[in-house]
């Protein structure tokens, strides 16, 4: 059951990756990146359960907090870029 959820999450990962490659605008790519980040959180939690190692949840917690930083940095860069040009 856990591996089924992990496969579903990984499928989401792959589909978002396609969007990240293909996205016509840069915002599509950022969206894909954001989704991959949140799915990684879930994937790590599920894999932790699947392998009976519950320490991985700390990793998921850290990712949940730090994912915000990456997205905010990316967006500050983007708007600064547009405003300058």
């Amino acid at each position, binding site marked *: 059951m856990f591996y089924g959820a992990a496969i579903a999450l990984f499928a989401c990962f792959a589909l978002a990756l396609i969007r990240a490659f293909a996205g016509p605008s840069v915002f599509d790519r950022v969206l894909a990146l954001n989704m991959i980040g949140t799915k990684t959180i879930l994937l790590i939690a599920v894999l932790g359960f699947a392998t009976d190692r519950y320490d991985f949840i*700390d990793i998921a917690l850290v*990712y949940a907090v730090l994912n915000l930083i990456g997205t905010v940095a990316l967006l500050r860069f983007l708007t600064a870029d547009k405003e300058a040009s």
Partner: protein
Amino acid sequence: MIGLLAALAAIAVAVAFMRDLLVVAMLSSIFSFACCALFVLFDAPDVAFTEACIGAGVSTVLTLAALRLTGRQERRSGRPATAIAAMVATVCGLALVYGSLDLPRFGDPRAPANGHVAPHYLTRSEGEIGIPNVVTSVLGSYRGYDTLGETVVVFTAALGVLLLIGGAQARPGKRGEAPARADRDVVLRAIATLFVPMTLFLAPYVQFHGAYSPGGGFQAGAILGGALILYGLVFGVERLNRLVPEAVLRVIATLGVLTYGGTGLVTLALGKGFLDYDAFGTRPVGQQIGLTVIELGVFMTVGAVMTLLFQRFAGRGEA
């Protein structure tokens, strides 16, 4: 697992060919996520933890800050790729693959890495050092010398950046460079007001829990740096500079390395070898004292360095 490896290969190829560096930065971030998931699959939580801390927050931010200084598009180099260069690269790649065929199978108990010292660490660590997390005991005590080297490397990276990218005393740039301004969005400010203290609490938790679960000095330092970077991103680099001035951070980074090396000197002075924690008392108490002190040193250096790098990078570049 094969899927993740294939995704990694695809990302690597795309990164090499894409011209828009911003997309490259984002793809590198995705690469980091995939690596972290892979490490989790390989049952290596400490490595996954470090990859998460550094890749998710700090690495992406610093790449983007560097992009602000260099510009977004990669300049096409004048000379076309020659056939000889391609051949050399292919031959080297094939040689590496051929060499890797000789590596032991994944998880082979008879592999040299698992043969000599590893059983000693795994069986005796509980008795000699007394903490459940063997990775931390190997990192801090059995291989403490290597970790000192790593900490010095982090510190040297900071030195390089401080020398190359000018700080407050540098001449103003040609293109009207200005430090990153604050964001006026209410939602971001509110959420950051919530998140920064929470992350600041997370850092000591990871630091002190590193003995019992994946964690430790590096990860905690990266998390602390991440918290301060979030503050600087949302409220402006100038406020961050006033909160933690660069001079203070430089002192803290240096103190971290000195704490680590100083511990070694103290053990020398007490009559034992360099970084031999038996000088602090009988095992396991002496070992634990030594471990706590050096982890603190690593934490100080890594946290201060991350914030310093962000301050320097974000202090310049177009507004």
